[in-house]
């Protein structure tokens, strides 16, 4: 009989309230748009970058086979498991015009896999070649595709026809590649002596585990008659990333929780403030017969309207940003899925944040509504305290403690996030990261494997030739300004960890001398770094043990056996079991997740001096001259490269900049939440107090005093936020730094002074702006109008 058919009226009331509360709703919608947009972009980014990697991966080989005969190559090409075979043969290396020309044969898939862009066609006849654009520039030739050029490619000076030009990104000044046709090889009298390498990608390997893939590769090699030692397995960044999906997902989920929490806090406080301000209205509705359920319905409906506008807008913004972050990896299905999931969680979270305010609204009894006063604080007992604008401001904030605390919390939350992200960003210092590579000097000459093809132990093979010798040392010392040469040792090794996992490829192991142990001891967290006992008992030190857990599932403990394989001076592999003797959380040089062993053990195992770099200590006078001397030394020797602290610092800075830009954009958005909340609180506060402020002015509060009172209110928020940020934020920032550091990120703790200053100054500016706006807004109405408001 009393059927409550009230959908229509609830809808109408909600819409009416929605339209009258424009400022509140605009801020709520803005919050939803920012949060949803940010989540969408962040969710799309990892899948997109993975997709980009996957596309690149398909052009990347999975295995390399060395020393092949032509018949083996064609057999590989015929195999049903093979997607493509990249063929490559080094034919000759000739010197012309102070540069080296490497003559090579590669086929089309190999060219693609090498990420070289070809403008023109592949050479087919024996006199056809491809050239690098940078080579033409170097020799000052204006030759184009179709032109002829005279070159010595190991058969004396001859005319060759250019069928295409290669555009490579690497601008290695003195090494150029010329690509010839197969006919060129076949026309050569000693054609059989060219050993061909084949790079292979197999079909349908996405689902295979690493071990299974290796199995398939080895059985293929076996079938074609390639010996195991000629097989090398390429590690794939894509496959590794795929394995890290779980931790990626956790990181993303944590980020979402943070964003949603921030957004919910803002929406909650916006609604809470609005609902407590409208108790009168709800009371009147209750008096004339609106049920609790209907009032709840009204508030929820407003939440729905905000979602209905904010979520689609946020999804659109986020998808567009997501697209531009990685256009290559964008795909519709992925975007739609992401959008659907985010749509659902954001919708639920808006409803969640509206829940409590809706309850408050529904629970207003008609009587309460008439008498409702938000001030629940106790009167101050002391009557001797003076009333100043500042004291009025303090009392005002304690009027509705919950509201003030909410605003402070969401501002403080922004501050804490800011400090976490900013600590991370400022603790990354390019120079601090470059410095461990140059612990004493500013330059180094080191071994280069770039002309050695694909060989895990290339450095060991070069070390056997001792390019870093006394003669070079003297040459370096003769450079003007060079004072001292430090010799560092290390060599590539592959590992087998106690859990049975293998390193797959090699990693550099550094050697330390007994003199150095003192310096390294400062970083020991567990075990003992004792040179003598580590030498006699084959001890090894592990830097950043946590990163080994991440990469290989092995949590290093003192006493764990690690089997290492290295190449000795005769080119034979040597296996040796080491025992973990010490764990380190950093190092003064080569600060990274490396293994360290006593230099005497390393040299004994390899049967040679494993010198890997000459670090050059020089006075800072003429950097350019030193660099150009180093350059000419490196040019003369294909196994040497040089680097400088300055150059490395610049490179590191450049490579990290995009990441930091992302972090700072994230911080900016989160700070926006805080500011939105502050603006909302201040404006609602002002509107609900118009009459009271009018009274104060009528009985004698001057404009200056009013201004001071409003500014003091803002200042109290700023001070509260600043204290929260500086205490809790600093602690959280340091914790973030510690966690990342333990994961092996090379960080050096710095306090983010500038970002914190910017944040606090921005808050101050916004507050000054708000109080100025408030005074102007009040002046729009005469004192009388304000005093009589609500009568």
């Amino acid at each position: 009989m009393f059927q409550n058919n009230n959908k229509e009226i609830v809808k109408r009331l909600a819409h009416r309230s929605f339209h009258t509360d424009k400022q509140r709703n605009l801020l709520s919608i803005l919050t939803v748009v920012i949060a949803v947009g940010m989540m969408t972009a962040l969710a799309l980014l990892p899948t997109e970058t993975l997709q980009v990697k996957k596309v690149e991966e398909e052009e990347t080989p999975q295995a390399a086979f060395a020393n092949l005969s032509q018949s083996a190559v064609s057999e590989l090409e015929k195999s049903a498991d093979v997607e493509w075979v990249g063929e490559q043969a080094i034919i000759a290396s000739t010197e012309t015009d102070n540069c080296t020309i490497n003559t090579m044969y590669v086929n089309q898939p190999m060219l693609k896999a090498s990420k070289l862009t070809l403008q023109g066609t592949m050479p087919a006849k024996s006199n056809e070649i491809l050239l690098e654009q940078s080579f033409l520039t170097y020799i000052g030739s204006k030759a184009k595709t179709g032109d002829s050029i005279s070159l010595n490619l190991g058969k004396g000076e001859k005319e060759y026809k250019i069928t295409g030009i290669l555009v490579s990104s690497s601008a290695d000044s003195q090494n150029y590649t010329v690509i010839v046709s197969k006919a060129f090889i076949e026309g050569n009298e000693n054609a059989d002596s060219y050993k061909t390498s084949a790079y292979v990608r197999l079909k349908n390997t996405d689902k295979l585990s690493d071990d299974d893939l290796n199995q398939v590769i080895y059985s293929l090699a076996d079938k074609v008659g390639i010996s195991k030692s000629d097989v090398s397995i390429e590690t794939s960044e894509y496959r590794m990333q795929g394995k890290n999906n779980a931790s990626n997902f956790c990181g993303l989920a944590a980020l979402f929780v943070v964003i949603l929490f921030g957004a919910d806090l803002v929406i909650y406080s916006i609604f809470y403030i609005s609902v407590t301000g409208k108790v009168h209205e709800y009371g009147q509705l209750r008096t004339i017969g609106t049920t609790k359920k209907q009032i709840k319905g009204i508030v929820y409906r407003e939440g729905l309207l905000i979602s209905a506008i904010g979520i689609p807008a946020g999804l659109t913004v986020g998808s567009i940003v997501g697209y531009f972050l990685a256009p290559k990896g964008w795909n519709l299905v992925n975007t739609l899925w992401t959008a659907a999931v985010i749509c659902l969680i954001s919708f639920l979270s808006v409803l969640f944040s509206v829940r409590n305010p809706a309850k408050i609204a529904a629970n207003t009894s008609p009587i309460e509504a008439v008498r409702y006063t938000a001030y629940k604080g106790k009167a101050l007992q002391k009557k001797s305290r003076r009333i100043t604008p500042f004291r009025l401001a303090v009392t005002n904030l304690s009027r509705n403690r919950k509201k003030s605390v909410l605003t402070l919390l969401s501002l403080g939350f922004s501050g804490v996030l800011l400090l976490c992200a900013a600590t991370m960003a400022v603790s990354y210092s390019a120079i601090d990261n470059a410095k461990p590579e140059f612990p004493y000097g500013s330059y180094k000459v080191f071994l280069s494997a770039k002309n050695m093809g694909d060989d895990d132990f290339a450095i060991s093979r070069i070390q056997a030739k001792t390019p870093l010798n006394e003669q070079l040392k003297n040459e370096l010392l003769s450079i003007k300004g060079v004072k001292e040469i430090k010799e560092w040792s290390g060599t590539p090794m592959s590992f087998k960890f106690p859990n049975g996992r293998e390193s797959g490829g090699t990693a550099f192991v550094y050697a330390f001398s007994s003199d150095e142990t003192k310096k390294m001891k400062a970083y020991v967290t567990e075990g003992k770094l004792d040179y003598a006992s580590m030498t006699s008992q084959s001890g090894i030190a592990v830097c950043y043990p946590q990163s080994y857990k991440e990469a290989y599932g092995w949590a290093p403990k003192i006493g764990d056996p690690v089997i290492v394989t290295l190449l000795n001076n005769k080119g034979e592999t040597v296996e040796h079991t080491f025992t973990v003797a010490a764990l380190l959380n950093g190092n003064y040089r080569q600060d990274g997740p490396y293994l360290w062993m006593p230099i005497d053990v390393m040299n004994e195992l390899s049967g040679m001096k494993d010198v890997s770099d000459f670090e050059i200590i020089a006075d800072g006078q003429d950097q350019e001259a030193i660099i150009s001397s180093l350059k000419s030394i490196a040019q003369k020797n294909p196994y040497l490269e040089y680097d400088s602290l300055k150059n490395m610092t610049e490179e590191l800075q450049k490579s990290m900049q995009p990441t930091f830009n992302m972090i700072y954009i994230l911080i900016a958005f989160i700070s926006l939440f805080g500011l939105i909340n502050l603006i909302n609180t201040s404006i609602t506060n002002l509107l609900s107090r118009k009459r009271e402020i009018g009274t104060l002015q009528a009985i004698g509060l001057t404009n200056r005093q009013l201004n001071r009172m409003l500014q003091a209110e803002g200042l109290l928020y700023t001070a509260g936020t600043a204290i929260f940020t500086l205490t809790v934020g600093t602690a959280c920032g340091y914790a973030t730094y510690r966690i990342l550091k333990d994961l092996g990120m090379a960080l050096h703790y710095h306090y983010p002074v500038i970002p914190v200053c910017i944040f606090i100054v921005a808050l101050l500016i916004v507050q000054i702006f708000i109080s100025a706006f408030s005074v102007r807004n009040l002046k729009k109405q005469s004192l009388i109008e304000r005093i009589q408001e609500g009568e």
Partner: protein
Amino acid sequence: MSILKTNELRKYYGAGPNLVKALDGVALNVEPGEFVAIVGTSGSGKSTLLHMLGGLDNPTSGSVEVDGRELSKMNDDQLTIFRRRNIGFVFQNYNLVPILNVYENIVLPIELDGEKPDEAFINKIVGMLGLTEKLNNLPNNLSGGQQQRIAIARALATKPAIILADEPTGNLDSTTSQEVMGLLKMTTRQFHQTIVMITHNNQIAQLADRIVRIEDGRIVA
């Protein structure tokens, strides 16, 4: 010499056919210590007149002089300061500051002026108005009559040249109205205060020394 004097006071709202003459040439003189009641029906212009007298609103033309100073010649801040020193207000809806306790509400205009309240004087007023026990309470916890007594105390506290009361009993029942009016009259007499009160209630108006009637923005008697 009169403490309050208006000359050809006019206040017009709107323009053309919508022109409303809220006040249309009001001349009023109030002597020191006098208790004047301004009566009129709703919309007669009595509230507008009171606002002009208190410097809360600006006249379209004409002048208001309080204690020999012309209000229209002061700027906003000067007027505010003049108001807190020389004019006490009692509003129909009390207009107390909810976050301040009774004592603080009473001494607020003095404190805003940066002065120290005259404690003996305040105690006397508070005692006469029966608020001694309530000084630490918050206004919203008190009855309407009590709240209006606080407003009266606040108006008296600065020893102003004149007290302006806008329907002081408008929100009170008749018994409480009588009580509040009695207190208002008694305290103003005691401290020799000048008081201008507006009301639409003739019975209340009878308590004044002089009754001024206003109709359509003009004084009729």
